[in-house]
């Protein structure tokens, strides 16, 4: 068997296993954090693979998997228009306030 036909076969297998993005919230964590991505044929297997790859089956963690195709990202080309106007208007940032003691997670 030629090397090429093997490679084509693998590419074919990958089409059935789309890319998934994985978000994990640790046992004491507050929010889900993007930890990486993986290939899996469907959501059920993506979850199980994510558990093996990213959490080592620790108890009490929460996992989200999202097909990469379902994510819309902001475009790097429009970065200035998107984020700049906010940066020079200080009133947009709540930096004037003293944070009272005892306010956690701000």
């Amino acid at each position: 068997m030629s090397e090429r036909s093997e490679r084509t076969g693998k590419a074919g297998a990958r089409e059935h296993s789309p890319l998934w993005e994985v978000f994990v919230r640790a046992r004491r964590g507050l929010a889900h954090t993007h930890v990486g991505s993986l290939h899996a044929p469907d959501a059920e297997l993506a979850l199980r693979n994510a558990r093996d790859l990213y959490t080592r089956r620790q108890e009490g963690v929460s996992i989200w998997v999202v097909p990469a195709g379902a994510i819309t990202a902001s475009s790097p080309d429009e970065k200035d228009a998107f984020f700049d106007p906010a940066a020079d208007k200080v009133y947009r940032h709540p930096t004037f306030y003293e944070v009272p003691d005892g306010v956690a997670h701000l």
Partner: protein
Amino acid sequence: MNGPFDFVLSLGDDALIAAQRLGEWTSRAPEMEEDIALANIALDQLGAARLLLTYAGELEGAGRDEDALAFLRDDREFHNCLLVELPNGDFAVTMAKLFFLSAYQLPLYTALAGCADERLAAIGAKARKESAYHLDHASLWVKRLGDGTEESHRRMQAAVDEVWPYTHELFAADPAAPVDPATLRADFDATVSAVLDEATLTRPADGWMPGGGRDGMHSEHLSFLLAEMQVLHRAHPGAKW
């Protein structure tokens, strides 16, 4: 079998040989993610094997530790069931073996967790969580392959048919054991039937029932497996690793 030593040894041997077979898959699985899952399960089985063999060595009281028990016995002294020593075959055969093994180990370890022997209860409590994961993983694949394409269905059914006869040995009655394997059969049957139904697979008829593993009478596969597993320890006996 007689006494708790033989019982604990046989469970340890099941886990050890299962781990060895799963280890053979490393870097050869159909997908990278599956490679990791199989290695994960192999590690769990090896972990259980170490706990059980260490305890078996203590029960025996002859100074044999886990390594002495794993590397310095030959096939006639191994008490694992025949199921775990069968070759891996294709992915469907491996999944059929793992499915039947974990459908047996889960109720076994669960029952052990409630037994009077504190060490065995602790080992059971730890291992049953892992077994639940193994069963979940194998069930998923049995369903996927069984209810997948025509070819995957054919292979999964062939694998179930091939491996099924070896499941009977697991439930041979042993009333003296901390957990009588015969009492696990109903749980096993319920799990297996539900998954096979959903996978659109047929449960094979009970005919040929090979056995003997628990008495050290093994298939021809085990001695080759042991030769590979033990070669270094046999070549350099007494060395520290």
